[in-house]
């Protein structure tokens, strides 16, 4: 009798202990690729041998953003923008096209129009389980009509890394942008000539994220980017520079269903050059 009970307990324990999170038929304890999707056929180790899903995917994202900046030397400026973004994904490769329309208001100046438009391509690498690297390159097309008519195409290259362990995610990215806008000079109210020079920018961010549920992702990050202005050199007061744009941001991604998703991002400026507040809401359709 005792032997039977002992065997039954062992059997039930082994049944409850069985776990196959990605449902590929390979138990988690021996699954060497624990996150394969249902569309992937796997080998005895649980690693992909063939992907049955269509390699072509698209998404269309509409967004609205608000940002406010109040540098110590100037009036507070509020900027509202509406954006549209289209992505095409083919296996590990993706292409993005986006643009936005803005309206900027301060007590002295009102300005509206189209922002620079972005076209870029990314390549996803997965050197290790849970680790994703994205290499990107793109161009910021000069669709923004600058007051000083000096806008040119800028080029950008980026590398981002993301490490996912269970429901936790650590990420970081670096980007380098070649600012090709023409330098210019102007005469200020004291009749001094001020030369304004642009510089290429380095930007990076570091953050940590978490999936509280299967549909929700949330993260916090620190972001820093060089100013696009290298220096303002006045013939009377000398050279002044602009500090980097630093902010901390909170991000939410919510999957509404298998096609629809929504994101929210809030950033708080840490430096005078950064927007004091930046809020962005987006809705996307992925197919």
């Amino acid at each position, binding site marked *: 009798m005792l032997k039977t009970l002992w065997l039954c307990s062992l059997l039930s324990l082994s049944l409850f202990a069985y776990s196959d999170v990605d449902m590929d038929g390979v138990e988690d304890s021996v699954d060497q690729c624990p996150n394969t999707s249902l569309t992937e056929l796997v080998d005895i180790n649980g690693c992909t041998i063939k992907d049955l899903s269509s390699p072509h995917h698209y998404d269309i994202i509409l967004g609205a953003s608000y940002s406010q900046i109040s540098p110590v030397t100037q009036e507070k400026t509020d900027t509202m923008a509406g954006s549209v973004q289209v992505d095409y994904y083919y296996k590990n490769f993706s292409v993005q096209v986006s643009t936005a329309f803005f309206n900027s208001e301060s007590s002295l100046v009102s300005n509206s129009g189209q922002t620079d438009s972005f076209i870029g391509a990314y390549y996803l690498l997965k050197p290790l389980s849970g680790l994703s690297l994205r290499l990107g390159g793109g161009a910021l097309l000069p669709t923004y009509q600058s007051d000083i008519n000096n806008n040119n195409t800028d080029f950008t290259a980026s590398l981002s890394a993301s490490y996912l362990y269970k429901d936790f995610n650590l990420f970081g990215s670096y980007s380098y942008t070649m600012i090709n806008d023409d330098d210019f000079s102007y005469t200020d109210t004291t009749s001094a000539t001020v030369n304004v020079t642009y510089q290429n920018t380095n930007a990076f961010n570091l953050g940590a994220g978490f999936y509280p549920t299967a549909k929700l992702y949330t993260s916090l990050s620190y*972001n820093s980017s060089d100013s696009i202005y290298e220096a303002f050199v006045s013939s009377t007061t000398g050279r002044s520079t602009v500090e980097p744009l630093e902010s901390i941001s909170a991000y939410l991604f919510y999957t509404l269903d298998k096609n629809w998703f929504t994101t929210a991002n809030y950033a708080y400026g840490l430096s005078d050059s950064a927007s004091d507040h930046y809020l962005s809401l987006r809705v996307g359709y992925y197919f």
Partner: protein
Amino acid sequence: MKTVKVAVTTLLLLGSLIGVQADTINTTSIDTQLKAIQAASAHDRVKLMNEFKQQLSRMNAQERSEAIDEMRSQMQAHQDTHSEMQEHTQHEQMQQAEQMQHMQQLQEQHTGEQFMNDMGSHTGENGGNLHQSF
């Protein structure tokens, strides 16, 4: 005319009967497959699971959704990792950060232009006595 009506009715009845039968066979087949997967050895389980996935890929969206739901309930999956969704999330997060950077740089550019307009002498169409220095 009557013969045509009878023929059409018969065809419709047969069609719906076949549909119901096919549905029952499908459900039974999935149920049987899942039981076989659960009972199989480690090696055979992978093979059967792969066959099941291939069958899923041939189903329409509705059938696939039902089959996956049934599989989830039968196989007592503790968690759905949604690896594709997670990948998409990471991609979106990166894009969002880049877009924020572009927008902040645009606002910085506005500020620079506003500064120039505030401080400069406003005689030209472009907001002052600008001298292109390139």
